[in-house]
């Protein structure tokens, strides 16, 4: 994937300018999907996919090396793990606060509804992080290989 023939300079400039506009928009949309999932369609998984798509686009236009400077490999690999740990951590936190595993209601002793909101918010973040990082990791892994 990385070993594409180099594009002509002007096309590349055009792409770069366009991407300056589009990539922040994509990332912004991802954040919207992430945090608006309780109200409309969407949630952590969809947001993670879109978030990764933004970075993949960046990598396709500016090259894998540049992308790796922006998001180093070590961060990607740790994020894959961290997302799942955040999700599980919420569950364990519920245990520690005296509830069942993943019983978010106990996260807030005053209002179980608020606790549920908090729990869903955090686990969706965990899902989003793992999904985005995994998609990026797969892109890194594939783009780093050469055609045989």
């Amino acid at each position: 994937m990385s070993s594409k023939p180099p594009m002509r300079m002007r096309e590349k400039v055009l792409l770069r300018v366009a991407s300056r506009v589009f990539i922040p928009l994509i990332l912004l949309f991802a954040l919207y999907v992430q945090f608006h999932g309780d109200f409309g369609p969407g949630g952590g998984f969809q947001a993670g996919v879109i978030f990764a798509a933004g970075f993949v686009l960046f990598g396709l236009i500016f090259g894998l090396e540049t992308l790796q400077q922006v998001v180093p490999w070590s961060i990607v690999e740790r994020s894959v793990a961290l997302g799942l740990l955040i999700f599980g951590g919420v569950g364990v936190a519920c245990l520690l606060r005296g509830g069942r595993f993943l019983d978010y209601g106990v996260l807030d002793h005053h209002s179980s509804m608020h606790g549920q909101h908090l729990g869903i918010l955090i686990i969706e973040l965990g899902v989003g992080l793992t999904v985005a990082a995994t998609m990026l990791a797969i892109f890194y892994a594939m783009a780093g290989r050469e055609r045989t």
Partner: protein
Amino acid sequence: MWIEIVLFALLVITAVTIAGLNDLFAAAMLSGIFSLLCASLFTLMDAVDVAFTEAAVGAGISTVLMLGALSLTGNRENQQPLRLGPFVVVLLTGAVLIYGTLDMPAYGDPAAPIHQHVAPEYIAGATAEFGLPNIVTVVLGSYRGFDTLGETAVIFTAGVGVMALLLGRRKRRDGDEVETSGEGHGDAKS
């Protein structure tokens, strides 16, 4: 009603074309279109969350992954005739499936068992216990949160698998691109 029939007809045509194509780039693109058509149908069936996900995953990520892999593996497939053995297996599976549909509740029937048991409690609970509008998010996040933890683990597992299989053949300073998986590995050039 009519729009659904048209979409279903398009789906069948797409699927048959995919099955018959030897050009794998075209097949991959068509499978993206297949997903997109499905996503439209999901919207018609009120599954907006599923439609959104299918569009992002099936038409987006999956297609990109396939094109990426094809750019590494080549896109030619050998011509091959219709095979009898698989055909019989598939017919048999289809027969059992059709047999199973005969006692199913009609499409869209509000009296179907799945709309009477469990689901009403989710719908009621979303307002009463969560105060959240999106019932799917509520069920996904809380009622069946453990499934979602498993789902995240599935993604994580796939990540681990792809990293274990593909990572590390990049040209690094120390040149550790050996990573052999057997004697013949890596030197078979096309």
